[in-house]
């Protein structure tokens, strides 16, 4: 693109060479990158060996070209269906519903869950106009048509949007005769009782457990 140098949103002086200004502007679009960070990253890349810069550019392109959403679980993947969905070691009777693909990484780190996942790609937020139709809810219902699934674990975030989503899904799924569960809520590891809010503390009390001998 041979566009003339525009004064960029990052406030870059028009005197900066056009390709430099353009890259600064591209970086500026990224979350958490302000004008100064965008400049710093650009000038760092400027001094980088061409091979490394090319590797970075290719990594971005490859990621965009090869990554799709897994058709059953909606997770990001380079093979469709994804490795979790095709793994025959996993329990196919349980689906854990999460908001974002990153939540799967967190749950997988625990090595405590061996079932399948479903990514909603968001949470219901009535005030922001995000309703069930904006999430992968229809896809979830589609998966539950087969009789393989016996339990759905609602693992949306324990905040207002996540709770609203879990309640909504609970309403939707209960008539299907499945076991619908919600992740427990309680005190975080390394937390202090005195700082706990009353919602968390109430739940922690309700979910108290026998102390093992």
């Amino acid at each position, binding site marked *: 693109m041979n566009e003339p140098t525009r004064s960029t949103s990052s406030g870059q002086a028009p005197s900066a060479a056009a390709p430099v200004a353009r890259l600064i502007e591209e970086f500026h679009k990224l979350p958490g990158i302000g004008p100064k960070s965008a400049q710093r990253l650009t000038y760092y890349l400027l001094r980088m060996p061409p091979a490394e810069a090319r590797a970075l550019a290719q990594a971005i392109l490859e990621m965009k070209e090869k990554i799709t959403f897994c058709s059953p679980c909606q997770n990001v993947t380079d093979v469709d269906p994804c490795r979790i969905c095709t793994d025959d070691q996993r329990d196919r009777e349980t689906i854990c519903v999460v908001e974002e693909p990153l939540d799967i990484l967190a749950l997988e780190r625990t090595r405590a869950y061996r079932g399948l996942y479903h990514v909603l790609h968001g949470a219901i937020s*009535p*005030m922001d*106009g995000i309703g069930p139709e904006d999430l992968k809810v229809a896809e979830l*219902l589609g998966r539950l048509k087969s009789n393989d699934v016996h339990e759905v674990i609602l693992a949306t975030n324990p905040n207002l949007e996540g709770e*609203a989503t879990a*309640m909504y899904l609970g309403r939707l799924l209960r008539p299907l005769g499945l076991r619908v569960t919600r992740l427990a809520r309680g005190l*975080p590891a390394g937390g202090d009782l005195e700082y706990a*809010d*009353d919602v968390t503390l109430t739940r922690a009390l309700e979910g108290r457990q026998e102390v093992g001998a």
Partner: protein
Amino acid sequence: MVAPRLYKTEAIVLRQRKLGEADRIVTLFTPLYGKVDAKAKGVRKTSSRMSGHLQPLTRCLVQLAQGRAREVVAGCQGVESFQPLREDLDRLSRALYAAELVDRFLPERVESRATYSLLLETLRRLQTAEAPDFALRYFEMRLLESSGFGPDLGRCQGCQSPVQAQQNFFSPQSGGVVCPGCAAGVAGTRVLSLNALKLLRLLQREAYAEAARVRLPPPLADEIERHLRSYIVCVLERDVNAAAFIERLRREETPHAIKV
């Protein structure tokens, strides 16, 4: 009221949005300083000591410090968490609707004690009310009144003659009732039954305890909801997002509406 550099206040959290990696901007509604946006640092981490106290629809005591662009939440203690709202999707969606309306109606940093206590009372009513929708209608009317947009239910907006006890029309654009004679000349009017007119006047004049004694047949409840909703959309010049979700919940309430 101009806020000092570091101050403590009671607040109801209206909404939150994400900021950066682990922060959020919370929209706080305070009685004295009005609507204030504040940055809450690190509240998206599970180890955060504040996140639970800053969930939307929580009444809390906050300590706010002036930051560069906006206030920063320095400390926070929940006072009232409205737990019954959080456990019932129908009540929750209505409470969120109320919070959204307050957020849209109020300008930033304008003292609004009356609206604060109205919202607080409404949230409490929504927790237990047998007819949460009625509590919401009352809230809508009072919010319109207190922000200066109360509809004129006494005189025809066309000919200024007193409204007769008959079927009239409601015109959001002209801000009140239009008599049958003038209705043809006014765009966007809807039929306003006599009972609905009486009910709207009741909401406008009576205290909640008095108004809530009325038993509403569903068609009448629907009618006043439609009128107030269209009037609010007209005043705000935009849709209220949470209303769409309430509608959806109602549609799906009919058993077996969803086929799998």
